[in-house]
């Protein structure tokens, strides 16, 4: 201890966390290693025990034994201050939750087997907290932590997907077979309800229990300070939980017959488990956390635990099981143990990697925000972190707010409703596909989901469009919807391309198509999409009557219908009917409708006449139609994005510029830039040269009025007199500026001279 603090940190030049050399800590590390091996042994043994002992009884015995030993060692009643009544209630809560967690953990153990339980459940708090902070907060702590989190997730997925365990598969066959109690039955039904296959339910359960455990231990830290030490709390809590479990156990043992023949043979294993899993691990962990610091002990501990688990899984021959089985029912199912599969090995490697990455302290320290510079020029950071400044919004509130925002405006509301309809249809299709095990339906459902992404994009754009202008988006977010329309156009092009390629390959080799399921699905899709088309074409007409009227619109508009709405202020000359975003969404829906129609037609043709070629031809036709219908949208969006003069204003602008020329005192103009920024902003800048005896503000007013008539509603006019050029030529340091200015002046002068002479 003295050694640790005697080393001079400052003079060493190494600020920050100091790693104590390993040599001094070897004994602790060895101790940790031994403990973890014992713990792994205990877990393996308890797995065997759990085959005969009911889980509630098992947990009760563990808690009771633990409480007895701890009462003997800690003497929580005789030492320390008195525990108040309020604190007893807290301890009761603590005990209840901790027994629930242990029940869950041991239930997971019965499902998954000891090795997988070790891998999933025995992570230290440090690891899980940094994992969660990577996943759910923005300041995860650098790419290495992200990598660790990715490894963790990959490991879990490996366990879920690539672990072909015989026993688990067998259990999956009889999930409802042998439920001992109401509790396990409830858990089983819960897992079945989750929709996860049964043998994977254990994995999910353990992951959930792990998160619960971490949250619980974090919360109980305050209570342990209040009570007077974690050990005292542990002792009291295990006592209380044993008492809580007592009635349940008595009821259980009264009602159900026990599988255990002789409890005396189980005393030794129970003592061993209580000692290794509950007592020793707790004490050694607390010592090592103090000596080695939490991250290090977590890293070593988990690595030792996983390695010893792997070793045991390889060599453990389940002596106890055999012994027990020999006692109880000989010769029943000899070889149903969890095996060591490749998936488990890979996931163990990933778990070890991710634990060592996640538990390592981040090198960079906290992420500070730059405050400024000290007088010496050293950057100063604010290390308080974002966590304090962010007031995190609760999820329901967030959902409520965004829903309210969505429903506020017509466009986003339409998109949202249609998205909901589409999603509902998709999920019905998917569920039905899974139900009937029809691949065609499932793949069509995924296709619909793929299409929904375009709707989501449109919805986001419609939301963003209403955001207030910021420093960066100085004109407002109106342009987002044009960009989204552009992206949706590209999306449709990609879809058309893929359909095209697919249909060509089918044209060469027409596959046999099973038309049984196709017709109802495509009719359903057609109905949904027709609803969408109605909604959006109405949206269009609504938009047309609200924002702008008249003007060329692409072929699918229902323009005549729109004008009858007449909201009174339907005159912004020459605006386009629907904004680009809605057009993109509309075209998407239209393309889907076309697809459904094509499928229906080809189904009819195939089933009636057996023309297999009808399907690719239909798709070819549809692809071409989609492609052709997208081109106008893309062209318009491109023109806006490329800052072209808005074509519908072009003539007006030319007239307006001519008019500007004729304003009294205006000599000439240069650099006229006009562009459409978004659906309702047409911006423009122009430089005017005027005679020196004219009032600038009057000219600005007149020019603004003239250009406003031409549709420009965000105008900047720079009025220059000859004095300006003189100032500039005097001021300007740059060569090019002088060049430009002198030329400009020259043109002015000519005119001026001319007027003078005339």
């Amino acid at each position: 201890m003295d050694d640790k603090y005697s080393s001079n940190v400052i003079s060493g030049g190494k600020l920050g966390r100091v790693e104590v050399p390993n040599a001094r800590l070897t004994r602790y590390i060895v101790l940790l290693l031994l403990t973890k091996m014992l713990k792994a042994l205990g877990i393996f043994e308890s797995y065997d025990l759990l085959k005969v002992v009911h889980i509630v009884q098992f947990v009760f015995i563990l808690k009771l034994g633990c409480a007895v030993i701890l009462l003997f060692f800690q003497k929580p009643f005789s030492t320390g201050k008195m525990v108040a009544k309020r604190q007893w209630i807290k301890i009761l809560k603590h005990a209840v939750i901790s027994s629930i967690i242990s029940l869950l953990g041991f239930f997971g153990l019965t499902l998954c087997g000891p090795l997988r339980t070790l891998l999933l459940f025995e992570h230290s708090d440090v690891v899980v907290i940094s994992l969660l902070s990577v996943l759910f907060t923005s300041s995860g702590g650098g790419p290495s932590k992200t990598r660790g989190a990715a490894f963790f997730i990959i490991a879990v997925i490996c366990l879920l997907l690539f672990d072909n365990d015989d026993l688990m598969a067998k259990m999956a066959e009889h999930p409802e077979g042998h439920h001992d109690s109401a509790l396990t039955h409830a858990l089983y039904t819960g897992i079945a309800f989750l929709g996860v296959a049964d043998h994977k339910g254990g994995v999910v359960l353990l992951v959930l229990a792990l998160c619960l455990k971490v949250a619980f231990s974090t919360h109980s830290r305050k209570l342990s300070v209040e009570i007077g030490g974690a050990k005292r709390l542990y002792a009291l809590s295990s006592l209380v939980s044993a008492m809580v479990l007592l009635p349940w156990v008595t009821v259980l043992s009264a009602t159900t017959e026990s599988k255990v023949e002789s409890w005396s043979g189980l005393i030794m294993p129970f003592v061993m488990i209580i000692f290794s899993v509950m007592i020793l691990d707790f004490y050694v962990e607390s010592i090592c956390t103090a000596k080695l610091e939490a991250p290090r002990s977590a890293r070593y501990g988990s690595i030792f635990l996983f390695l010893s688990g792997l070793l045991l899984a390889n060599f453990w021959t389940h002596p106890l099981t055999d012994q027990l089985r020999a006692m109880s029912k000989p010769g029943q199912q000899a070889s149903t143990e969890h095996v060591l599969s490749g998936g488990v090995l890979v996931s163990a490697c990933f778990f070890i990697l991710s634990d060592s990455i996640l538990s390592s302290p981040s090198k960079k320290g906290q992420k500070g925000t730059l405050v400024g510079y000290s007088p010496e020029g050293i950057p100063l950071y604010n290390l308080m972190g974002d966590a304090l400044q962010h007031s995190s919004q609760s999820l329901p509130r967030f959902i409520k707010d965004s829903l309210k925002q969505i429903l506020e405006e017509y466009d986003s509301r339409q998109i949202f409703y249609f998205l909901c309809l589409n999603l509902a249809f998709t999920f019905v299709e998917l569920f039905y596909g899974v139900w009937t095990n029809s691949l065609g339906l499932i793949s069509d459902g995924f296709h619909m989901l793929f299409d929904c992404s375009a709707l989501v994009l449109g919805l986001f754009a419609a939301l963003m469009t209403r955001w207030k202008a910021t420093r960066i988006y100085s004109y407002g977010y109106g342009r987002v919807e044009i960009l989204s329309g552009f992206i949706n156009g590209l999306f449709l092009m990609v879809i058309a391309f893929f359909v095209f390629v697919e249909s060509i390959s089918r044209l060469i080799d027409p596959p046999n198509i099973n038309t049984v399921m196709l017709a109802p699905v495509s009719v359903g899709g057609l109905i949904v999409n027709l609803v969408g088309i109605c909604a959006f074409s109405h949206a269009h007409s609504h938009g047309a009557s609200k924002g702008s009227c008249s003007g060329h619109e692409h072929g699918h508009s229902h323009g005549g219908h729109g004008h009858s709405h007449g909201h009174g202020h339907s005159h912004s000359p020459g605006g386009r009917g629907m904004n680009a975003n809605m057009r993109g969404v509309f075209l998407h829906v239209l393309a889907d409708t076309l697809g459904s129609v094509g499928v229906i037609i080809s189904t009819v043709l195939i089933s009636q006449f057996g023309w297999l070629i009808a399907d690719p031809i239909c798709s070819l036709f549809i692809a071409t139609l989609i492609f052709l219908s997208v081109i106008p949208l893309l062209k318009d969006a491109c023109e806006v994005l490329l800052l072209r003069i808005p074509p519908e204003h072009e003539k007006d602008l030319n007239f307006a510029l001519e008019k500007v020329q004729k304003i009294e005192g205006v000599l000439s103009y240069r650099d006229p830039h006009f562009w459409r920024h978004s659906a309702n902003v047409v911006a423009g800048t122009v430089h005017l040269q005027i005679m020196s005896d004219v009032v600038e503000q009057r000219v600005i007013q007149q020019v603004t009025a003239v250009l406003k008539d031409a549709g420009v509603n965000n105008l900047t006019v720079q009025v220059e007199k000859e004095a300006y050029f003189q100032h500039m030529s005097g001021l300007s340091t740059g060569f090019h500026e002088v060049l430009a200015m002198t030329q400009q002046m020259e043109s002015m002068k000519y005119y001026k001279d001319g007027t003078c002479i005339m």
Partner: protein
Amino acid sequence: MAMDGMSTSPAGLSFHNGSDFYPRKLGPKPDVVPSGVTERKVGAVDKPDMVAVDVINFQDSDTPLHRKKQETDTYVLWSGPPWTLTEQGTIHPFRKTHKSFLGKFVQEFNLVASDRRSWKILLFGVMNVICTACLLMWCNSTNSMALTAYTYLTIFDLFSLITCLMSSWVTMKKPSQLFSFGFERFEVLAVFASTVLVQLGALFILKESVERFVEQPEVHTGRLLVGTFVALFFNLLTLLSVKNKPFVYVSEAASTSWLQEHVADLSRSLCGIVPALSSFLLPRMNPFVLINLAGAFALGITYMLIEINNYNAVDTASAVAIALMTFGTMYPMSVYSGKVLLQTTPSHVIGQLDKLLREVSTLDGVLEVRNEHFWTVGFGSLAGSVHVRIRRDANEQMVLAHVTNRLHTLVSTLTVQIFKDDWTRPSLVSGVLPAATLSASDYGGASGFLPPASSKQAEELDPLTSTPTKPSSPPPEFAFNTPGKNIQPVVLPSTHQHRPYNLGLAYGASPYTSMLNQGFTQPGGGLGVGAGLGMGARLPSVQGYRTSFSAAPHRYGSNLLPSQTSQYRP
């Protein structure tokens, strides 16, 4: 030199001057005109750089005219000035060009192909198409999703080659009337479109992969490795041998992708072990090379696992991985180019811009800067517009010149609108002064610099600048921070030393009051004082005007003062 000048924005100016203003000005233009050059030389003898300017100017205005003629062949109506369009009648220019879209395309293509450098790009493009076709066939035969995902990267290379061609086309084009900002945006749009397209392709791969997770078909490994290496080779060859300006710019300017960050993190820890690698590993990796290598690596693993263990699901998994990497690589670039397309202020110049705007708002007479819009036209060049509200008695042209001068260093295409509140209402002094003097004095600042008809003769002698006529104040050094130098020559002639305490006041008001005096007393001398103030007093104005600003209420409050001061002055 002259060509340098042409490539940037002044070229646009000169082009407008040369072509747009000439034909119209020809009517009222007198016959004395073209001799302006020699005249100017006389006037600008003491400014050697002005002479140089003139010479180049002449050459310069010649070339754009010539160039413009070339263009009129291709764009008969586009590049014409608006009034010619409307005068010529009802031909809609866009429809005209739209009709012969294909012909126009061929014409533009010939324009690009005339450049020797684009041949190489075209060659690579042809190679890329062949390679892509080959790969797509192999994808079909191997039935491998991962190889398809990797092939999309090859298709992306094709897009980037097209972008490269487009950027060389853009450099040949000059701003037209329809695309008044020039064609640089085409480049940005091409980058955006190609990154978005490849991301959509990746999305498609994701969707297909999810379907494949449900039912995994068998993957044949026969051509898998061959395809991988062919694609890798072609991609790297294209990336490293074609100089792709827009993509290089975007990949450097955009924020790092997660792939780059992870590689940087890994290589940093690797360099901790093997320091010799640091020169190779530590600099920022090219994201395209990185994703190509990573994709090839994933395909290699896929091949190995399928060969050894027949894990067909690995193919789908690595397709997902490649698709995710594609997203990661392309997303920052499409965000960057999308932000350019959205006309946003680039975040890296915000600091500089704020500094400049703060400077502008402390200029004398400036009350407020608002409606500031700054955005990038293409990759790099800023454009912007800003409204500046000024005091009612401030000189518009001077403020305009100063604001432009400040912002011009950063913003190349700038428009500044100056506005005053209640400009129709005459200023406060009008109650005291007779209306006749107002016309001359209310906008006294401007007329101070360009004295009206009375000083016409003097101006014709020296038409360009009013500065050189004043021998006492040489062309000022424009040292804003050393006011003493500039104060001296102006202070002494105009205001007498009997009011030293009121220096600032006298200064601030001087364009106004002195002209007031001159309007009354000596019109002829207006030029000297006005010019002196125009060039000399402009610069001390920060100090001078600021004090005057605070002092102004006193002065206007006791509204008899102006006339009194005018009496004090000679």
